[in-house]
């Protein structure tokens, strides 16, 4: 961060640590995340296709 950033929105933003950035592109770990994200997506799809019956119009 530069001193000029201290009064701007940049000063209030979260930024990833070097380790976090490493994990984002570390292929073996990302392969695991790929599987996890696919499971999340499938859960979301099944939930969206089977809406709860209690959502009635006003």
């Amino acid at each position, binding site marked *: 961060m530069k001193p000029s950033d201290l009064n701007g*929105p940049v000063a209030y933003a979260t*930024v990833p640590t070097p380790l976090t950035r490493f*994990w984002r*592109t570390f292929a073996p770990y990302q392969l695991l995340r*790929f599987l996890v994200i696919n499971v999340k*997506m499938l859960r979301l799809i099944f939930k969206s*296709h089977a*809406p709860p019956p209690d959502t009635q119009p*006003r």
Partner: protein
Amino acid sequence: MAKTVILGAGIAGHTAATLLRKKLGRSHEIVVISPEPEWNWIPSNIWVGVGSMERREVVFPLAPVYARIGVEFRQGRGTVIRPEGTEVLPSPHIEYTASGGSPDAPPGRETYDYLINATGPKLNFGATPGLGPHGGHSWSVCTADHAVEAARAFRESIERMKRGENQTLVIGMGHGTCTCEGAAFEYVFNVEHELRRHGVRDRARIIFLTNENELGDFGMGGLHLKRGGYVTPSRLFAESLFVERGVEWINRAHVQQVSPGKLAYETVEGLERELEFDFAMLLPPFRGVGLSAINRAGTDIAPQLFAPNGFMRVDADYTERPFEDWSPRDWPATYQNPTYDNVFAAGIAFAPPHAVSRPLRSPKGTLVAPAVPRTGMTAGIMGRTVAFSIADRIQHGGESPLHRAPFATMGAACVASAGKGLFSGTAATITLYPLVPDYEHYEFGRDLDYTTGEIGLAGHWLKHLLHHMFIYKAKCLPGWSLIPE
């Protein structure tokens, strides 16, 4: 034999056509009328728009697919719905002008027993003077052709940077009531990635100009995520990306005018500023495509069928209420028009009862209100629901109960890539449920077990997977119906 006419061959219309054909067999007629001869996987237009994917990879011709599965295809643009027919032609019918052929071709008519309006939106570049690639001064990635033009201009900008010039690139929303902020979000990070790849990032100032209340709003009022033992707003997630990539942002903004190399905008706070640019990709607001509707007596009944924004009224509650009284129960479930029970609207063509994100006004009274995004997943589910309802009514009688897929209880998934390589770049993957916040059932408006976000290479792989999977499905190749919407 019953006949169903579908206006539009985007995700909702094409899903409805293919599922209707599958449910009904070949004993009933299905006609698709679309102005475009090709199907377009719109999410990948982002990659076309930075030149990392070819146009031919995101489109395919519809006619051969429809010929193979037994759907009639008319290339044309719907103009008038006559739901009660006319004295001369008493059956309900749609009038359309042929496109893609001779400009002198006579207008066409198709009678119908059921009509699905899945036209998608009109890209309303005219809402902002100077906006858009045709007669305006900014680029777009809304269509594959727009994306090709944007990529060409972006490439010229890169070449200038390679020659030592500095460039300002403005990316975002071209009006205060735009939707699909996620698309602009994805485009800006693909642009940033490409500039790094070409070794000219230090020559570029990139500014994200958006109508969102905060970064990470996405027209959905933002979302909350469980991270590190806290429940954090998506604003932190989004701002982190912008800061990490050195992209500046201006939010709560309405673009007033785009001139060559310069745009004027105002913010909710009342600031009125000008911004000079060398390259600008600004998405337009959407409105209905401008269909008219006339009854048997010749009276204009468009106000009964369409909301003032031109989108079709369905089984939503359109009563005007203050933001605090908005409810998930306002949103539709069957997508049936309340006046004509054989008319449905799916995808972007249905009129939302209100926004999801809180609307704001500038001191001058300018509305800055991101419209709710209707993503591919929701469009596909709507197309499927409407197709199943119509198939049931054709096969089991006109009083068969309609299928329901409440818009408010659908989820949404967004994969926003930054780059396209299998081992370079990263993507932000966001899932959320439900799309419309429900504070009666969930403390933060959404189910935190289904609302997640993460950044990484895995998102890239998923985006590639979705690209190939949904184009395969849309081509109706073997096993296509096993792939969910």
